[in-house]
């Protein structure tokens, strides 16, 4: 991936910071993650005030390019950019030139003509953000590429964990369900391992990819493995990714019976998370989804401040505390 992240500094005006992208959690160091979480905390405080808009990214342009349906990711990126006073453009594949057969590269070059500062992209194919990053000068943020990565989801999950449990280090998180098709799971495992949490993946054999332990996690096919965890992170059963005849599990009914997260399978006090959208009654029992120990709505709320932090971090540099103090004066 390093090749594609090569910064062609000579092409950038001197006032701009070095161009960086957020395509995968592996692009980040532990320091980067901690800085992003701290920035998100600062933004959370600023959002408690009556005037919620910050002037920080005034004059900047953020393009949201979504080739897959999305509610929470696209809306929170758009709101995050607006809260920072950036101009935003949202382009959905349906109804655009993509419908007329335009290639991703051509769409990216077309958008690049407006000189955007950030392109946020969601695409059904792995490698789409790399392709855009290789062809435009904007910062590229991956909002989900196929089954590969969804780094801002992992960051908002870390933020939620830190807010809900006070720490991430040495937490034990069980991730349950369709790991094979989940970009959320892949990004989250890498992020948790980076911050020294313990991760156990639980699910049916065909949905736990061979070799995934190489990321530094454990695996189990037995739902009882969630008992020992501090947090149970439930993955969506991705019906839209289940090809006909794949037989990953015989039926959803069998899946729910074996791996559904129900109150009976949880310990009191165990926190529950889900990246949404939920299939109530499939991977998660409605009683679990609505219980007080569920952090699911906190995750959505975290999405806004974490995505503000990501945009801010890409477009500015320097100690966060100072900058936040400075912009509070302006506001």
């Amino acid at each position, binding site marked *: 991936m390093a090749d594609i992240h090569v910064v062609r500094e000579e092409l950038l005006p001197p006032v701009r910071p070095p161009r960086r992208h957020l395509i995968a959690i592996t692009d980040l160091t532990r320091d980067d993650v901690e800085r992003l979480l701290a920035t998100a905390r600062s933004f959370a405080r600023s959002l408690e005030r009556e005037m919620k808009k910050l002037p920080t990214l005034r004059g900047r342009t953020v393009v949201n390019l979504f080739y897959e349906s999305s509610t929470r990711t696209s809306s929170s990126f758009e709101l995050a950019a607006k809260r920072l006073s950036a101009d935003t453009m949202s382009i959905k594949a349906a109804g655009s030139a993509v419908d007329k057969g335009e*290639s991703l590269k051509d769409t990216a070059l077309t958008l690049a003509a407006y000189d955007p500062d950030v392109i946020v992209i969601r695409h059904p194919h792995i490698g789409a953000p*790399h392709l855009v990053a290789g062809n435009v000068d904007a910062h590229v943020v991956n909002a989900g590429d196929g089954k590969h*990565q969804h780094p801002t989801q992992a960051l908002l999950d870390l933020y939620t964990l830190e807010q809900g449990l006070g720490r991430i280090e040495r937490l034990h998180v069980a991730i349950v369900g369709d790991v094979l098709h989940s970009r959320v799971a892949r990004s989250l495992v890498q992020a948790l391992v980076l911050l020294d949490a313990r991760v156990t993946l639980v699910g049916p054999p065909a949905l736990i990819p*061979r070799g995934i332990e190489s990321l530094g996690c454990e695996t189990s096919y037995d739902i009882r493995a969630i008992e020992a965890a501090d947090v149970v992170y439930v993955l969506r059963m991705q019906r839209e990714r289940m090809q006909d005849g794949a037989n990953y599990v015989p039926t959803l009914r069998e899946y729910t019976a074996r791996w559904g997260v129900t109150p009976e399978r949880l310990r009191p006090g165990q926190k529950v998370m889900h990246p949404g959208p939920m299939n109530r009654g499939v991977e998660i029992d409605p009683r679990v989804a609505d219980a007080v120990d569920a952090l699911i709505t906190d995750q959505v709320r975290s999405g806004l401040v974490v995505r503000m932090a990501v945009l801010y971090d890409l477009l500015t540099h320097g100690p966060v505390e100072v900058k936040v103090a400075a912009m509070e004066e302006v506001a």
Partner: protein
Amino acid sequence: MMLYAKDSRKANLVIRGARVVDPGRRIDAVLDVRVDDGVVAQLGTGLEANGHRVVDAEGLLLAPALVDPHVHLRTPGREDEETIASGTEAAAAGGYCAILAMPNTDPVVDCSAVLGALVEQARTEAGIPVGFLAAISKRQAGSELTEMVELAESGAAGFTDDGCPVASPGLMRRALQYNALTGCTLAVHCEEQTLSRSGQMHEGYVSAQLGLAGYPSVAESVMVERDLSLAHYEAQPLHLLHLSARESVDALREAQAHGVTASGEVTPHHLCLTDEAVRSLDSNVKMNPPLRGPDDRAALIEALRDGTIGAIATDHAPHARHEKEVPFEAAPFGVTGLETAFAALYTHLVEPGLVSLPTLLERMSAGPARIYRLEPPQVAVGAEANLVLIDPQAQWDVDERSFRSRSANSWLLGQKLRARISLTVAAGRVAYG
């Protein structure tokens, strides 16, 4: 067995002072070589020019020219990606004196009308001799055999459904039985598609980390085992295309030990790279079969050394730029290789000491020739001149602007390679240099 090329002037050459390496004839000596009217006329020292073109080859390597048994010339149907003219020009620049083209074109080479048109075209535009394999099944659809005997009589160089497996074991058996009448080589692309499914790369820890759908080794090896069993039962020869997995190599070695007349080939990219390369998400490392793990690569190199795998094949698969400049997952399979194969293998296998130079030369020339019952190129008095002159010291950058192929989907773009082809003589004619 027929190869076709346009006619041109036969060479008259004196190549002076090269290190001549012909593994088949156990020659490794500094010699002069004289070619009269396209035929090797004399080997010796201090040979006279006699008005011939003189090539000062001191410090260079002269060997039997290379044979590529697996090339996609994209003609008919995708002449924007490659033509017989551009493909053979690329092959000549890569040191090849003969190539075999696969039949998965549009239309498929599945009847003598399509084959005949290709043969005619090759006679007017092929810069080096080219042979055409015909399909095993009509439209490569895997249900009805082609008219194999008529195709063989019309000049088919062999039979394959390359790109597609022969999914039905029943049809595969019939193909083996019927091919006994043609005298041609039957070659198979081994892939059990219910196992490879929509696989994008080798199934292993790298695919698990990247989220790319896995195409496991067993998707290849169960088909290799099935086809070897059928070949054994029918007592017919069989050639296995582009092997990638350790399990496949093991099965081939065991079948050979049991007396099955089976051969195998391997590509430069499977010999040089592993699935780690896919982390770049560069669509130029996406091919079928996929790059596999380090253990598979080691097994392929070992099989190449011990002769289990007798041939190196580029599986040169040109693709239009706009079709490869898409997200990895949306890109078509295949990479080019004709113009870089020798240098890539010299740099990545010979220089590090993994494979000896004579072994590499044998597997790139006489090895593939024998599998398809072609006359093996050799440096021998009286033989048609099929010679390649190589500068083993030359270092060069792989740059798409230098490609003669119409496509540039090479996994080597931007890399530095050692060893460069400086002259190719194919069928007695100077084809390059």
